[in-house]
């Protein structure tokens, strides 16, 4: 059963080949057997999952279903889940049990989707390797000594290892697309404002966006159908029409204009990844697409700009963790300041503290104009680059990441080199555009991702473009089967 896509599982449940309870038990069994090795889950909610599955089976019997009713998925541990620990990968929230559901979680629950549990992640979503999690690093199912990427590394590894057919993720600077690329799955970061951020623990509020992580583009469309839409509880969610994303999947690509940004093929890109991306582009040409070289001249400024804006927003967002109302509290505080400063010293990990300090510095008197305001101006230049490009093309393509999965520990002592892994994904977040990563090759046993970037609210076209590629190729069907078999033994 775990080899099936969401679309196939949906059909299987509808035709009675198996029940939601059987399916859920199957996945829980796989998690119990295999996840001690991968560490992709922080919490497994077996009891709740089985109860949800029983309820879903009743819904299926009565015909009151949605396409995903009865299908088990996993949620990144950044989404609040009523009654279920939501840690955000941090010691700070190791004891936090939210009293409410995130809108994304609520929508899946209402659709009868079963939640298997909460997936591992970099602490407060700050990282590209999952190494900053309080719960330990996640292992890449393709290569156990390598990172799965981050911050949604647990969500990516769980789907790649077939411990869940799909998962939710969030993406502030590449946190859906980069782990999707490194784990050989499909990941979509929608347009900023497409999916509600309510109940999603905030990292950088002007960049954060939730999206699906799946094996296929068709599955991502099915997930986005549930996730997308305006939400009164998130004033930054946008009131835009939400199409049925599965309807556009098979549209013909003849005449599609693909822009290839020359800045995405410069120094630092692994030649084998470049070759994989070029082969994918050739495939698109054979599907009728027209390829044009474009320029996004401010690309090199994206990482610097991001590392002011994201930490600045984080320093404000994370000020709420003070040891008073919920979360970690230090022992025997001497005075109020001691309570705050020691709670935060002990409750946050090094990377989170580093970013809070940078953000505090950038926003402090005397430095604001030079850093924060400057970064916001550069941000507009980056957005303008994309706006100019989209006058001539329908979709932009390039690599998702410059390298395949790196080894655990390889970059953990060098933050800047870790940050540069996100060089191709960050510009999309700064501009607020939708971006996607789909599998496009395997290099020395490790997956390579192709990135697709679309215009605002054009997720339907991105999914269509990704789906047509997946109809013509089989990279998305490759799994780390031999690795998983080794773990099974």
């Amino acid at each position, binding site marked *: 059963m775990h080899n099936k896509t969401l679309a196939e599982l949906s059909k299987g449940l509808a035709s009675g080949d198996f029940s939601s309870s059987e399916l859920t038990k199957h996945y829980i069994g796989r998690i119990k057997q295999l996840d001690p090795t991968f560490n992709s889950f922080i919490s497994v909610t077996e009891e709740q999952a089985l109860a949800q599955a029983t309820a879903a089976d009743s819904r299926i019997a009565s015909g009151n279903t949605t396409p995903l009713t009865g299908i088990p998925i996993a949620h990144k541990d950044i989404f609040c889940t009523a009654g279920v620990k939501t840690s955000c990968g941090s010691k700070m929230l190791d004891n936090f049990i939210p009293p409410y559901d995130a809108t994304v979680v609520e929508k899946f629950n209402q659709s009868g989707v079963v939640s298997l549990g909460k997936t591992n992640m970099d602490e407060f979503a700050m990282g590209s390797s999952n190494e900053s999690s309080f719960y330990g690093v996640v292992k890449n199912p393709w290569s156990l000594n390598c990172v799965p990427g981050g911050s949604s590394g647990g969500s990516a590894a769980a789907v790649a290892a077939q411990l869940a057919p799909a998962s939710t993720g969030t993406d502030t600077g590449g946190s859906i697309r980069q782990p999707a690329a490194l784990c050989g799955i499909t990941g979509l970061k929608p347009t900023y404002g497409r999916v509600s951020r309510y109940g999603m623990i905030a990292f950088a509020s002007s960049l954060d966006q939730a999206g699906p992580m799946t094996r296929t583009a068709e599955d991502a469309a099915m997930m986005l159908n549930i996730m997308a839409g305006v939400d009164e509880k998130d004033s930054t969610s946008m009131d835009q029409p939400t199409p049925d994303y599965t309807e556009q999947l098979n549209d013909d690509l003849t005449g599609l204009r693909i822009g290839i940004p020359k800045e995405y093929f410069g120094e630092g890109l692994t030649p084998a990844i470049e070759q994989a991306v070029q082969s994918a582009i050739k495939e698109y040409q054979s599907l009728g697409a027209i390829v044009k070289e474009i320029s996004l001249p401010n690309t090199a400024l994206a990482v610097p700009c991001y590392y*002011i804006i994201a930490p600045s927003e984080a320093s404000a967002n994370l000020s709420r963790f003070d040891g008073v109302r919920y979360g970690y509290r230090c022992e025997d505080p001497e005075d*109020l300041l001691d*309570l705050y*400063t020691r709670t*935060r010293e002990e409750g946050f990990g090094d990377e989170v503290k580093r970013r809070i300090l940078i953000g505090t*510095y950038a926003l*402090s008197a005397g430095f604001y104009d030079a850093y924060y305001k400057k970064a916001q101006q550069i*941000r507009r230049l980056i957005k303008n680059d994309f706006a100019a490009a989209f006058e001539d093309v329908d979709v932009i393509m390039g690599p998702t990441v410059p390298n395949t999965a790196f080894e655990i520990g390889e970059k953990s002592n060098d933050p*800047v080199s870790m940050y540069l892994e996100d060089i191709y994904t960050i510009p999309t977040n700064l501009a607020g555009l939708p971006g996607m990563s789909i599998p496009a090759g395997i290099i020395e046993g490790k997956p390579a991702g192709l990135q697709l970037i679309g215009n605002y609210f054009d997720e339907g076209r991105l999914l269509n473009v990704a789906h047509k590629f997946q109809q013509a190729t089989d990279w998305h069907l490759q799994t780390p089967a031999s690795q998983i078999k080794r773990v099974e033994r």
Partner: protein
Amino acid sequence: MSIEKSDIEKIAPLARIRVDQSAVPEIANRINDILKMVDSMQAVDTADIEPMANPLDAVQRLRVDLVTECNQREAFQAIAPQVEQGLYLVPKVIE
């Protein structure tokens, strides 16, 4: 621009994070690496560029001023570090 050890000693209390004296040099080094990378922004002329806070240049949506939250006292009590008889217990240091 680069950061001095004394800057870390100034920022850390602002950020409400205790930093062990012995860790200050290493933190300063790491942050300086990052600031060095960030400094490439300074070479760009942004004189007439409007700063961008929201990628869609959206403005805050307003709603009617009505009470929409329901009372969740019990739920909030359940996740507080310490409670007694419906009250929140805090360390003596919090007035």
